[in-house]
């Protein structure tokens, strides 16, 4: 009899490379787990929804201010048009992104994903890449409509400030969407959560009326939502506030976004644990 076979040399555990995971997810997620990423939806999100949403609320304003002076009506229309142009960011950043967990559950890939050595941070951020681009597209198109159809005037030389504000808003809102996606891990579905946060901004973020008209506790809570900062920043930028004047708004926007990203990464372990213990990991 021969000797016992020697044990195979042990290898260091496989570690997926951060950038590879990030990039793969950025490319693959729109085709698999992100919601509403078919090309017709994406074109609708960028070109159709901003216009129809703005038209709806602009006519509500036109109807309610029927007896007001022309300048007052124009001012209100301008306010609502800008607010709703920015609010369309939520379709890609919140509604699409927070459905990733639902899709994983429905496709039966969630369990496999959780036992894989893929870097969670790379996995998470990668999924947000395309929604950030689509969010930028929808807000930009909304602002173009605001100028073309609703009489919004952009202060000369404010393009760069607007571009930075729009990009920061898209980045922060996708972070918030990822956080909701994590919470949805131990919910049965993310659809309810996605729908609530898709539209709640219209009420609490200064999209259609100043947040000062809301009850004080709601005003305070609204600043935890990146959209509130985003709407304020883009309004200021369109009004001609220079780089120096934008510091506080950009800081608030960046912090609310970073807090959302940070929480989504930090709490992912908790979400996983809760989902495993409640069995919601495989329930949809």
């Amino acid at each position, binding site marked *: 009899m021969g000797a016992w076979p020697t044990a195979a040399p042990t290898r260091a555990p496989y570690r997926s490379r951060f950038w590879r995971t990030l990039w793969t997810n950025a490319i693959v997620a729109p085709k698999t787990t992100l919601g*509403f990423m*078919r090309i*017709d*939806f994406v074109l*609708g*999100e960028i070109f*159709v*929804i901003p216009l*129809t*949403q703005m*038209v*709806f*609320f602009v*006519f*509500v*304003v*036109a*109807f*309610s201010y029927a007896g007001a002076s022309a300048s007052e009506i124009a001012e209100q229309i301008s306010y*609502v048009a800008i607010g709703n142009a920015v609010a369309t960011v939520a379709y890609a950043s919140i509604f699409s992104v927070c459905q990733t967990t639902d899709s994983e559950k429905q496709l039966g890939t969630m369990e496999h994903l959780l036992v894989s050595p893929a870097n969670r941070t790379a996995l998470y951020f990668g999924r947000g890449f395309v929604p950030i681009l689509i969010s930028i597209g929808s807000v930009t198109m909304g602002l173009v409509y605001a100028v073309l159809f609703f009489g919004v005037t952009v202060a000369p030389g404010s393009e760069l400030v607007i571009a930075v504000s729009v990009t920061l808003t898209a980045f922060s809102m996708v972070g918030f969407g990822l956080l909701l996606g994590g919470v949805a891990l131990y919910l*049965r*579905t993310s*659809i*309810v959560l*996605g*729908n*609530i946060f*898709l*539209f*709640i901004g*219209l*009420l609490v973020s200064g999209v*259609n*009326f100043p947040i000062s*008209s809301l009850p004080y506790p709601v005003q305070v809570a609204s600043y935890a939502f990146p959209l509130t900062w985003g709407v304020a920043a883009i309004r200021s930028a369109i009004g001609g506030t220079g780089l120096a004047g934008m510091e506080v708004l950009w800081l608030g926007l960046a912090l609310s976004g970073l807090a959302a990203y940070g929480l989504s990464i930090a709490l992912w372990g908790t979400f996983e644990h809760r989902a495993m213990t409640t069995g919601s990991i495989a329930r949809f």
Partner: protein
Amino acid sequence: MATVTTSTPDWSGRRSTLASIRLAVLTFLADPQWLIPSMIAPIVFGFVSYELFLGSPDLVVYVILGAGMMSMWGQTLYGSGWATGQDRNLGTLEPTLSAPTPYLFVVLGRILWNVVSGLIGIALVFVVVVAVSGTVPSIDNPLAFTVLFLFTMFTLAAVGTVFAAAYVYTRYAGFIQNVGEFAFYIGTGCMFPVIILPFWTNPIALFFPPSWALDALRYAAIPGYVGFSWGLGWDVVGGIGTTVAYLLIAGVVFRRVERHVLEVGNLQEY
């Protein structure tokens, strides 16, 4: 030689529709969370509009009717589309279409329930708006209002049936629902009279039975309402005419769609 006996099909439209309604109600009771997604938007839009209307007591009825209308629209659009999409995903669309019962009656039952369940949205908005404004809106002619409200629901069901026929045929039901949501709210004048829209949009709005019905409902509910110049009577006539046209179209389209998708064999594509 054996004789072949023919028998009448073992179904009736009424029984099929009632069975479909019953199933829709049971499904809803088993999993009522699906009502929430399509109700959130109308309720939020209702509150936003109330705020934009500056809390004017004259416009409270607009908010309640508008949010209710949007809630029922949402349920009709999403509910009927979602049900067909779900049938497609779960692989039950083919057997359902192959059953002796025409699919039209299955869909009709679902849509009728969807429209009725949209009433929960109107109830919620009513309670909150009344609580916030502190005024209970009064209605001049409650009987006419009730009849016209039921008629409005029926017009929505008629539109939903035509949409459902299209949803069987297309994989783009989700696109129509999500991208078209605001367009339907605008086109049928949910939160404001259609006449304040540019004139060229008015003929388009009149293609939809709910535009007529909602205008008639506002004439009955809001004193001094200025809607279509022809007034309540012709609104009702127009609403009935377009609703009948929609139901006829739905019948024809369903028959053709059923035949076509069975011939092509693409029912399971999604």
